[in-house]
């Protein structure tokens, strides 16, 4: 299963909603790459990603959205295995001094926390890879799961 982080999911949704917008070309390229390279791929969303996605919609629309998400996406929970994987990620950071870094405070630290839970959930469910736009994620994963960072360069048609 291919896990989408919230930023990547939104980029893909924007691309499908507004396909002619040039700023969405890279997200289109990712979708095409996914289809070409992994035609059998199923998309998975950790529940923290679902939670973040829902914040962009009115609560009265959440039941309908959840109903659709449950049917078409693999929704991944924070279970004990995921909690342990996240704890191991936190422990690794502590051992490497990341948590003592005065630069990693406030928002940055909060981001790290959510990242750890998303990675932990993906690892516990033995997903193949995580797609994200978050530059920190590959290093945080520490090799336990493949992280695909960023969107591919869109194929430009030749000028002439």
């Amino acid at each position, binding site marked *: 299963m291919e896990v989408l982080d919230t930023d990547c999911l939104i980029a893909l949704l924007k691309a499908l909603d507004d396909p002619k917008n040039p700023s969405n070309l890279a997200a289109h390229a990712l979708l095409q790459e996914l289809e070409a390279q992994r035609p059998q791929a199923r998309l998975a969303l950790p529940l923290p990603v679902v939670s973040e996605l829902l914040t962009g919609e009115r609560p009265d629309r959440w039941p309908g959205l959840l109903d659709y998400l449950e049917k078409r996406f693999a929704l991944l929970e924070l279970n004990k*295995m995921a909690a342990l994987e996240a704890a191991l990620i936190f422990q690794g950071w502590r051992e490497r001094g990341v948590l003592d870094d005065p630069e990693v405070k406030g928002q940055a630290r909060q981001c790290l926390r959510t990242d750890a839970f998303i990675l932990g959930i993906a690892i516990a469910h033995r997903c193949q890879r995580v797609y994200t736009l*978050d530059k920190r994620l590959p290093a945080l994963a520490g*090799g336990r799961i493949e992280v695909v960072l960023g969107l591919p360069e869109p194929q430009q048609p030749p000028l002439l």
Partner: protein
Amino acid sequence: MHLPSPSSAPPWPILGQVEAEGRVHRLFLEGEDLQGPEDLPLEDLAGLLEDLGGLLRAFAQGQSPETPATFSLVGLGKGSVALDVSAPQALNLEKGLFLPLSEGRYEALGLEVREAAYGLSKRLMAKDWTLKAHLEGKTKPLLGAAHPVPKPEPELVLEDTLTLYGEVIRLGGVEPKLDLRTPQGEYHIKASRERLKELQGTLYQAIGVRVRGRFAREKGGWRPLGSPELLEVLPYQGAGAREALEGLASLLGEAYRDVDPRAFVEKLRG
């Protein structure tokens, strides 16, 4: 290019080129049938190097996940067979890897390293060979026939619930069960006849289920111990990536049209 010197100078020329910051470690492959490299078939050398590379990479990954480490074979000579391996200078292979292996302190090594050491040790044992290193003034066995590495026990075993998504490949049987093929492998799931009735007509279709079982943390993820038990069949019907996203995009309409994905996430997590 400057070549780093191994701890004792080899009587044969060092092959290949090494990065200036690399450090050469000499390892000795010993066995009664090994008098020199000419006794080492290429296939065995290839397998040995693959497993040794895996062990060194696993160790390096545990030390510094952000920095990919490169290891190279820079020399091959008598001793029975001596292997000169170049590793990044910053990695303390002697203290961090070779000594714990030699002293049997496997608990000092991470699970991935123990798994890799066990794999290499098993390969060497099949040939009655031992890999040694020069440590603290003596040549000491690290792993193989004279110093086998025990099979690592899973570091964590626990009971948990898990959602699984995959294709139904078998249903029913004398002992009622559901066999599910997932991208991670096949799961054999115990289920009551009543639960299996809910799944009638789903053979070779994608479904989602929630199960409870015992799981062991191992290299490559969590492995179920025995057959997990089916708790619930989920509403999941499966969809390709584009189909799933197109449906969601149509439900959301313009909700995210003017949103910067990175900024949206940073604001929420901040």
